[in-house]
């Protein structure tokens, strides 16, 4: 297979790997998947952590490896890069829609938080730290819905 074909296949497979903690999103939606390229005779996948302490990075690496192996790409290099630093701006528009549909308020410009149930924009912060490093816990002051907020970061 020509490298171009392999890279294309690898990109498609890698883009479909889901985040272990928010499985409605792929690592491409989240901006964790940075690059898929051809490097010295093999596929190279570059990923970047969201939060420094994201415990899912190792799992993502394992998931990537097994998904790529399943597509016939066994000889793959997976590299973690720290520069430039990930930002919540990297979550795609589609990713934001998926988050909201799943009941997690996505990060919006200027720190706006919309209740994923009634769209009210006046939630109350319950806890700055939620079920994962990237989320805070809010409650809607309009409809009373408690929900996770993916922090703007």
């Amino acid at each position: 297979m020509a490298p171009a074909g392999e890279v294309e296949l690898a990109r498609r497979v890698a883009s479909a790997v889901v985040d272990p903690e928010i499985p409605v999103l792929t690592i491409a939606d989240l901006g964790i998947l940075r690059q898929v390229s051809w490097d010295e005779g093999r596929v190279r996948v570059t990923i970047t952590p969201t939060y420094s302490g994201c415990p899912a990075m190792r799992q993502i690496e394992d998931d990537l490896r097994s998904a790529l192996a399943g597509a016939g790409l066994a000889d793959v290099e997976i590299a973690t890069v720290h520069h430039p630093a990930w930002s919540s701006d990297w979550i795609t528009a589609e990713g934001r829609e998926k988050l909201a549909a799943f009941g997690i308020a996505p990060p919006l410009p200027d720190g706006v938080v919309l209740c994923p149930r009634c769209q009210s924009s006046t939630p109350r912060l319950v806890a700055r730290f939620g079920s994962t490093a990237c989320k805070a816990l809010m409650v809607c002051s309009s409809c009373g819905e408690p929900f996770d907020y993916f922090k703007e970061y």
Partner: protein
Amino acid sequence: MSAETATTGSESLVTALVAHGDDNLVLAQRLGEWISNAPELEEDIALGNIALDHLGVARALYTHAGEIEGRGRTEDDFAMRRAEREFLNVLLVEQPNGDFAHTMIRALFFDVYQVDLWEGLSGSDDETLSGIAARASKEARYHLLHSSAWVVRLGDGTEESHRRAQGAVDALWRYTGELFQGPGQVSPERWRATIEQVLDEAGLEVPDDPYQRGGGRRGLHSEHLGSLLAEMQWMQRSYPGLQW
């Protein structure tokens, strides 16, 4: 640049990365001690999350230090296979948790320092370090929101919480001077201005005691680091090379 100065430059960078890594690892281990013991569920989760952030920063710094050093040392070598005297963390982070006020005052002192440190290092010529620092600086600001809010709540709370918070300020103040001895350029004046602002809002006072302790950056630690490392490294020391 001669080969000699290049080596010296990278050696001092490795030392700096390890020192900052040690600060973050040791504090992560301390904060982890709160898990299942915090005053409420939200705090348990908060302290666990903050510990994870610090741990992640330490891991990235150690990995980068190992790559620059070029002797094949990994993050695990730095964390699990060095002795107490080889750790370069400041004494502040190894101090025992004490009560919750003590932990929050320690966090406040450290968070204000880290915000400034990472903001400065995010402009580093070393791309990896600048990326790690850019991420860590956002996290440090978030940690500071948490610690400063608690310090105000405790200082300006009941007589008992005020007494405990002031006691913690008095006990930990002596470990703050070391934060400005490098590596990294953090302005003691700016640090103090921010601290005074928070303490003032909390109704707490900066102690009038000039006594300061140091030595951590040279590997000379208080009695507390040894037992922390003994617990943290026990598995790897007992079963060298053990893997999950």
